């Protein structure tokens, strides 16, 4: 930020560094990681569990900072992101890069030393996947960006599980798959009513490239895949009645909201109520589904 009428730059505020970590995204990451940690069999000392969650949160923050460093020019073109510290000119770009790399090294190093090196390795890979594979490669080049890139957000429960057990079994992979198949309908619902924003930045989101009808079809189709994956832990006998009942209700609702999006022919963002409802519900869906899964596993244990 500059002081009016001169070219002296103020140092970035600590709140700007905090904003670089995308705190709202981090809250979902922390929650799913905690659920993975609680669902895992075995014991972990509370201090080590706290350290693992802190490292996962810090790793997510590093991913967010590196993402904002790379996308500063794109962010300036979108209303939703134009007020971020870099496009708003409140911070030097190099500071964001150094902050992101520092957080990444810190989170992976502490995870390895204090928890275990398997969870540290997955954490390192997830940061690399989000910052490089998704942000630099997929996002600007393919409308399938959030399908493949969704894997980056699906790692936290696997890392949480690995922090306790030191290995990866079928259930954490199913938790990974739930987030992986949840991401397309979640993001494409957002992309439908933010189409002009993404278009202005030249990001090839599905509604801009394939059109709204194709996007609505994809949302509805992925909702069935999500439902099948979400029921799988129950069908395979890994969870009890609590998760089973919750998953059935949540997925019936999700399919209902996705059906409304599929039926809609609205092209004006302002009147896209079904899309906004699905987007809002999808966030609630993930919180409730993972909370029920963790609680169910704790009760079974």
């Amino acid at each position, binding site marked *: 930020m500059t002081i009016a009428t001169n*070219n002296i730059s103020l140092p970035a505020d600590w709140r700007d560094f905090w904003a670089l970590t995308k705190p709202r995204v981090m809250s979902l990451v922390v929650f799913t990681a905690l659920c993975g940690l609680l669902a895992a069999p075995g014991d972990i000392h509370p201090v080590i569990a706290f350290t693992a969650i802190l490292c996962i949160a810090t790793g997510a923050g590093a991913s967010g900072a590196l993402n904002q460093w790379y996308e500063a020019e794109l962010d300036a073109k979108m209303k939703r992101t134009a007020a971020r510290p870099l496009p708003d000119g409140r911070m030097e770009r190099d500071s964001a890069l150094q902050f992101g790399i520092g957080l990444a090294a810190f989170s992976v190093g502490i995870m390895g030393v204090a928890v275990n090196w398997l969870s540290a390795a997955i954490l390192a890979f997830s940061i690399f996947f989000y910052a490089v594979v998704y942000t630099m490669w997929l996002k600007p080049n393919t409308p399938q960006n959030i399908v493949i890139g969704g894997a980056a957000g699906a790692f936290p429960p696997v890392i949480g599980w690995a922090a306790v057990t030191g290995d990866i079994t079928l259930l954490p992979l199913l938790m990974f798959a739930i987030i992986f198949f949840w991401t397309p309908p979640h993001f494409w619902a957002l992309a439908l009513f933010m189409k002009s924003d993404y278009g202005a930045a030249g990001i090839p989101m599905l509604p801009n490239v394939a059109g709204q009808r194709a996007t609505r079809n994809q949302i509805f189709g992925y909702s069935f895949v999500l439902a099948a994956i979400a029921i799988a832990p129950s069908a395979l006998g890994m969870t009890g009645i609590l998760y089973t009942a919750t998953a059935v209700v949540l997925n019936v609702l999700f399919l209902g909201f996705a059906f409304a999006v599929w039926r809609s022919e609205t092209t004006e963002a302002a009147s896209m109520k079904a899309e906004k409802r699905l987007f809002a519900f999808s966030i609630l869906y993930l919180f409730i589904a993972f909370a029920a899964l963790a609680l169910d596993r704790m009760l079974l244990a």
Partner: protein
Amino acid sequence: MTEHETPSAIDMGPRKVGDLSLEESNAVRARQAGRSRAMAVVLFGLCILFFAITIVKVGVWG
């Protein structure tokens, strides 16, 4: 530049901290103080965390 032009009338490039007005200087110092306090909180938290991790790892409290 002629003898009668003052340095402030032409582009001198980025100004130094010593060239700031009192108001500007206070704004920079306030920002630096905020960052220093945030860093102090982070470092203090890390000290506590590393101490706790060490105690757990060496098994003092089982």
